[in-house]
């Protein structure tokens, strides 16, 4: 786990999710659902904006996955309606009757590549939740073979695949085995992480995410994260939905960052009521450009 103050780490990753190219076979590692949904939303958003067909194969299921995308600003309804976006479960794509076969999964992938071309899309982006491999699925030993064959099949095409591995649940041996078959490794830019606190970049909508407890002792990585977020264009979201404590100096630092922005830009601080109250005490309601958004709004 990265633990850095004063510089950014990306858990061994070599690119940001926003830097992937047309035929990448990327390995995304994530530590919590919020991070997975955020990075996937950015992958989907950029694919849709680029005129690509986008498919998300997810264990979460369409019922949970599509609202998570919509909440992050993805035009889910229209993209689903016109066929540019598809969200599917693993069964029927990667699995058949809860059994995995590298050959069958590759046939599904080839079919998706052909269909996206037939439908006139400029390319294909597939986000592939690999959590199915943590369940007792027969044929799971063919996973490395699948990753290897897929890497060869994607090279030189206009199709890219983002394989999503939960780094907290997959054993290091499996991760180390499949990693070499990927052209890129992707993770959220992380400014600080230990057992109590995690500060990382948020990609969709852009900003930062702070989870756990934060006090003045971690002002330095918070300042760096805010400074990098401010360098982006447009509005900034400070996602504190998983934050359980913030002290006065850190809350004030966030408000001060908002005060320094141009009047055309806003900072959305997303948090639960207990955190909201601390910002209100510090006068956040009267700081121009700051909006306190309830994290309970889904």
């Amino acid at each position: 786990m990265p633990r850095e103050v004063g510089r950014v780490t990306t858990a061994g990753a070599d690119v940001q999710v926003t830097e992937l190219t047309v035929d990448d076979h990327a390995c995304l590692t994530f530590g919590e659902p919020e991070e997975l949904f955020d990075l996937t939303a950015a992958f989907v958003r950029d694919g849709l904006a680029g005129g690509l067909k986008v498919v998300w194969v997810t264990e979460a299921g369409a019922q949970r996955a599509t609202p998570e995308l919509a909440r992050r600003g993805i035009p889910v309804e229209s993209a689903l309606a016109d066929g540019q976006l598809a969200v599917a479960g693993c069964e029927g794509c990667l699995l058949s009757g809860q059994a995995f076969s590298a050959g069958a999964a590759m046939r599904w992938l080839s079919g998706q590549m052909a269909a996206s071309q037939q439908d006139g899309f400029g390319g294909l982006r597939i986000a592939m939740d690999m959590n199915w491999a943590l369940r007792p699925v027969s044929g799971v030993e063919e996973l490395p073979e699948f990753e290897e064959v897929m890497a060869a099949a994607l090279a030189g095409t206009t199709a890219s695949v983002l394989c999503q591995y939960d780094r907290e649940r997959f054993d290091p041996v499996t991760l180390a085995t499949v990693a070499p078959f990927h052209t890129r490794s992707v993770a959220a830019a992380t400014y600080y992480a230990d057992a109590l606190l995690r500060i990382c970049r948020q990609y969709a909508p852009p900003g930062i995410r702070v989870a756990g407890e934060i006090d003045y002792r971690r002002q330095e990585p918070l300042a760096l994260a805010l400074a990098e977020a401010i360098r982006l264009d447009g509005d900034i979201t400070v996602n504190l939905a998983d934050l359980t404590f913030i002290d006065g100096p850190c809350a004030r630092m966030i408000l001060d960052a908002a005060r320094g922005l141009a009047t055309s830009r806003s900072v959305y601080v997303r948090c639960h009521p207990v955190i909201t109250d601390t910002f209100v005490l510090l006068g956040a309601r009267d700081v121009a450009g700051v909006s306190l958004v309830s994290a309970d709004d889904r």
Partner: protein
Amino acid sequence: MTDDVHRSGRAPAGEGDSPPGPGMSIAARVQPAVDQSFDGDSLYAVRAAVAAHASAAGIPAARIRDVVLAVHELAANAVRHGAGQGRMRLWITGGGIRCEVADAGARPSGSDGDGDGAGPDAGSHDAAPWPVEHGHGLWLVRKVADQASLDTGPSGTVAVIDFRFESVRATS
């Protein structure tokens, strides 16, 4: 109205007794529910202990936040501007929560956050413009606590805060 800030140089309270002060009916020499030493590396443990005991006493979540925030800010002040370490004691009685944060460091005049000289009832103005750098922590404490006092002098600093609750389950 109790004088909010004293500079009488009272030393940290001794073993086992409760901090003196009007407003709450805590008998002298009541054992605290929490008696915990802290330094900069253990502020999270102070917060966790306060939250756990306040929750067990049946205090609403929003007020637990207030108690935790106030105690944290006092302890952080002791670490940053006092001796660098200190002692936190917390009493839960039928009338509410009292917490004492003590450290052996004296605060130079002005650096303990009392720059505006505001009492507990003077915190109703808006937060902007920011008070002096070190003052914000104590400003927050006074804003959320029902009563707050700070004694500081050459031998140390003792802060006592009271939160009154109607239906607290006494645990000590």
